[in-house]
């Protein structure tokens, strides 16, 4: 069976998996939906009660009949790179490409339907609660009074964006920021605002789940550091074992979310508790693998190559488990 990788050409993290697929001898096709129709040819046939389709790019051809798995890595908007792009062309290209792929009998990492839902932060928090994670108290509101009450109750809270920096403004970043109850909350009325109780942390944890395999890495935080993505802590990511309680919660979370891949962010407090911050269904793993040597790309390639999921949990850390 073949693998389809949907991502941009410049995605070198995907290259790490491509190299593994080459080594395994697994046939695959890599393309960017943005390159439909100029560099990607597609054709789907619905006739005589049957369906078949083909995709072609980079001199390779993939049949829907032989498609085993699809990896949604960093795909562009369909037809975004077309000679004459338009919202209508994007809509048509999405219909053609994803309509064809959904009709195939393939496994997804991750299915777009589940991925869309899994991106929603308030939904994540609910599922995290149901899965047994420790979750900091959080409010997402357009009411200045409620935001102020939340900050007064918890004293130290962080404000963070649910969707990331404003698209189209590459000159802006939105790091998670610590604020106090004295902030002027009137502007909460101008847009939904996510406030969360601050968790004083001694380390950031990134746990990458690939099918039934877990890869956890830990980086010691700098004193008073709030957002682990910004600032040099002079510490490196190191592999760590996954506590059994967390492993069970990850199991529950990915089952509820329908995810084959997920990257969890935790804050480790002074008592060693891993507080759930978020789950990125398409989170980066390249930097973790490069710094720790955890074989995440190989696990992704193996999952994509297999026809059925692995049957049992395998936890991978510095000392196994």
């Amino acid at each position, binding site marked *: 069976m073949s693998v389809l990788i949907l991502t941009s*050409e410049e995605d*070198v993290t995907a290259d790490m998996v491509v*190299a593994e697929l080459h080594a395994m001898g697994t046939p695959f096709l890599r393309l960017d939906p943005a390159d439909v129709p100029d560099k990607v040819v597609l054709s789907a046939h619905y006739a005589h009660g049957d369906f078949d389709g083909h995709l072609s790019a980079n001199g390779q051809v993939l049949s829907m009949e032989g498609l085993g798995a699809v990896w949604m890595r960093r795909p562009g908007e369909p037809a975004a790179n077309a000679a004459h792009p338009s919202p209508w062309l994007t809509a048509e290209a999405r219909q053609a490409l994803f309509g064809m792929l959904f009709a195939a009998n393939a496994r997804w990492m991750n299915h777009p339907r589940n991925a869309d839902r899994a991106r929603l932060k308030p939904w994540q928090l609910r599922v995290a609660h149901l899965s047994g994670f420790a979750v900091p108290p959080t409010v997402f509101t357009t009411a200045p009074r409620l935001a102020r009450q939340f900050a007064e109750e918890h004293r130290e809270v962080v404000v963070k964006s649910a969707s990331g920096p*404003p*698209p189209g403004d590459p000159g802006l970043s939105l790091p998670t920021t610590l604020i106090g109850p004295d902030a002027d909350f009137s502007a*909460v009325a101008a847009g939904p605002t996510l406030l969360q109780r601050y968790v004083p942390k001694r380390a950031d944890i990134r746990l990458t789940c690939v099918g039934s395999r877990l890869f956890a890495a830990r980086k010691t935080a700098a004193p008073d550091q709030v957002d682990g993505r910004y600032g040099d802590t002079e510490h490196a990511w190191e592999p760590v074992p996954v506590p059994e309680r967390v492993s069970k919660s990850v199991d529950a979370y990915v089952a509820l979310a329908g995810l084959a891949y997920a990257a969890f962010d935790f804050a480790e407090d002074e008592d060693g508790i891993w507080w759930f911050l978020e789950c990125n*269904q398409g989170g980066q793993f*390249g930097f973790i693998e490069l710094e720790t040597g955890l074989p995440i790309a190989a696990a992704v390639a193996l999952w994509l190559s297999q026809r059925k999921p692995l049957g049992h949990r395998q936890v991978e850390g510095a000392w196994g488990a």
Partner: protein
Amino acid sequence: MRPFTLNYALPTRLQPVVTPYHFDASLQLNVLSDGRPAVSDPELLMAVGTTTSTAGSQTHFDD
């Protein structure tokens, strides 16, 4: 009125990223100027920073 969250946005100093590799359609991955896959040089990838957790934040928000 500016949304509350944007009050905490910071300007990012964007450095022009020159990636020392290019996409090879036949191998379906990026290669260095000498033809080796870019992933064969982990130190280079870490130096370029294209695999980090903020590398795709402008186009993909689930990093």
